[in-house]
């Protein structure tokens, strides 16, 4: 057994030397993820702030006056641009000058005065679904409160909202810890998919197979650089975000490092399984890419898993990234206890074992 350990270590050291030898590779591994973290962490917001809205106002009564005063006071609405008619508003929406507009009909105040319901129209750009749905919520809230001020009605239940873990719903508190997980995925997978494919491309694969090593020893040794790159970079990003951004870090650093280790192991095993069948680096990269994209999109980072079709949700639960995301948000914002983190670590380890077994079988199948 100790002989196996020595062989795996020797292989790991050799692999690490290969990856670290090239200065450009080093720069790529260190610098580009930092840029990604900062740039994309700040850019990716589903918030809708300061949105410009159009207005077609045919009513000069008290109802439109009060409604527009409330719209003007709302912090989420930026400029209100007046258009003479609906056609002009439609044109502006088509050209994407405004997201949409409010249409106040001529009989609005009169209907309110008669005790009927005055109808405010809202026309939004259906190409921008997320923004349209959020603005609909803003405006319907304003409509309801203005309506109640104009004519006090039967009491409807009120809602007091509190947001735990992120009281002001600061978007970067979601994206920055999330980006750590996403970027670590991309990094670990792109390093690990080359491991064996590179040998094939350069014709050294036969020498590799001729080494006095078992297949699983080769696999583990080959997994080492990607694993270490993920562990090192992931831990570094966590420290960077914790120290340099205003995202609170409430949980335990050793625990999140442990989770990153389990995650790096899982993802580098997936990468090796791909690498075992790839004939050259191009195939390896493209194969890796075919895995990275679904991993990111099913992880719950781009859109919540709850909204996915029921049959797809168990698949999303296998995605190691969905577990690391839960841990990142949990450790940064929720001070997640060890038992809850462990519940996310086991599935990642299971994926690691399954992928290693698959990689082993593929490598054996290929070399026979």
């Amino acid at each position: 057994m100790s002989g196996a350990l020595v062989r795996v270590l020797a292989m790991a050291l050799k692999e690490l030397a290969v990856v670290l030898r090239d200065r450009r590779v080093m720069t790529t591994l260190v610098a580009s993820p930092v840029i990604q973290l900062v740039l994309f962490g700040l850019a990716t917001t589903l918030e809708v702030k300061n949105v410009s809205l159009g207005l077609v106002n045919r009513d000069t009564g008290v109802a439109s006056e009060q409604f527009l005063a409330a719209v003007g006071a709302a912090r989420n609405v930026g400029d209100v641009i007046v258009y003479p008619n609906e056609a002009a508003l439609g044109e502006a929406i088509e050209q994407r000058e405004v997201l949409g507009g409010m249409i106040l009909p001529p009989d609005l105040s009169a209907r309110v005065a008669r005790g009927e319901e005055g109808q405010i129209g809202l026309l939004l750009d259906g190409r921008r679904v997320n923004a349209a749905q959020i603005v609909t919520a803003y405006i319907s809230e304003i409509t309801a409160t203005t309506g109640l001020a104009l004519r006090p009605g039967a009491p409807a239940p009120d809602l007091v909202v509190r947001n735990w873990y992120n009281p002001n719903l600061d978007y970067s508190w979601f994206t920055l810890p999330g980006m750590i997980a996403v970027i670590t995925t991309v990094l670990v997978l792109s390093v690990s998919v080359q491991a064996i494919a590179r040998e094939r491309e350069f014709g050294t694969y036969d020498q590799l197979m001729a080494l006095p090593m078992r297949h699983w020893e080769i696999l583990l040794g080959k997994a080492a650089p990607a694993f270490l790159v993920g562990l090192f970079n992931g831990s570094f990003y966590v420290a960077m975000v914790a120290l340099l951004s205003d995202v609170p870090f409430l949980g335990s650093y050793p625990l999140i490092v442990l989770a990153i280790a389990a995650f790096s192991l899982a993802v580098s095993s997936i990468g090796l399984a791909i690498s075992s069948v790839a004939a050259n680096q191009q195939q390896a990269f493209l194969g890796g890419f075919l895995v990275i994209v679904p991993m990111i999109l099913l992880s719950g980072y781009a859109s919540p898993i709850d909204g996915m079709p029921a049959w797809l949700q168990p698949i999303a639960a296998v995605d190691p990234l969905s577990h690391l995301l839960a841990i990142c948000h949990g450790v940064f914002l929720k001070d997640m206890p060890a038992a809850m983190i462990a519940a996310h670590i086991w599935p990642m380890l299971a994926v690691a074992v399954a992928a290693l077994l698959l990689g082993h079988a593929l490598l054996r199948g290929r070399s026979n």
Partner: protein
Amino acid sequence: MSVRDPLFWRRAAAIRAKEWAQIWLDPSTFGLVVLMPLILMFLFGSAVTLDVHGTRTGLVDLDRTSASRDLAATLANNSYFRIAEKSSVAEVEPALRSGALRGFVVIPDGFERDLASGQAPALQLVTDGSQVNTATLLAANLRGTLRGWGEAKARERDQAAHPALGLVARYTYNPELESRYMLVPGAIGIVMAMIGSLLTALIMAREYERGTMEGLLSTPISIPALVLSKLLPYYVLGLASTAICVAVAVLGYGLPFRGSFLALFLVSSAFLAAVLGQGLLISAGTKNQFVSTQFALLSGFLPSLLLSGFLFEIDSMPVAIQWLTYIVPARYLIPPLQSVFLVGDIWSMFLPNILALMGFGAFFFLRVTRAIKRQIA
């Protein structure tokens, strides 16, 4: 050697034939051109959705009266929420921390009594703020549901009761506000960006890495002819992928296609020219397949996904990043692409975007030819 030289075209054709042979020999290229679009169309058509449905929400009913049960039933029947009833707040707290619930609603003691006596009882919603978008939409959906419930109750007591103001929201081009209508055309842009920058990022780097670039440069072909003939096959592959995507979007997901194929072809070609040039420049600049793919991811794929306005509104980004989006080619692709599906041909919007993309293409092309030239000097 000039374009008028008959040998220019013959030599270019020879390199083109060699590229095609290389593509045919490697099945992974077809994996990217055929499989990737299908996977992406499926993910953006079926998995990724911006409508928040089935949000796991806890409910603690401290009132347990007919009014509170009625409200609980209304919430449970609403597809926005997946309600799990809990007996106390102490029981939901760990569920929110572990992520098993995304929020919980507390119906206060005395809810029915307050309603009957004409006071507005205050429900409490606690959200998992770590999931910002879900939290925002959960609160908005719950507010809307409560308002609807209150109005329904008021009408039960008094048929003539109307709120003073009502809102009628309409969505142009997408009446049901299906997020698929926005995501699927966007995904086509992502596919093109990927094929453009990722495939081409490999092709020159591979020649350098395997040492075959010298051989290529020692042939009498001129640099522009070399670059063009390297790009052309990938341009064709990019268009083929786009065609697959459009077919899936229209036939598989029932998206309308209100514009013309000519507009789609022109916009796609201009975009492909830009990203192919970008990929080739990366490839010629780095000469290393690994570094090249990382660069292509960083400067091609990720900006197209995150900075193009496809998923995330550009207007909501920090100002410095808003400026940065102007150098992301996909920014000029997404609006025309969404419009050609949902709206129709808006040439006044398409033409400036096409021009911008062709500008990118020309810029990258010149840079690539110069980058290669410098190396032989």
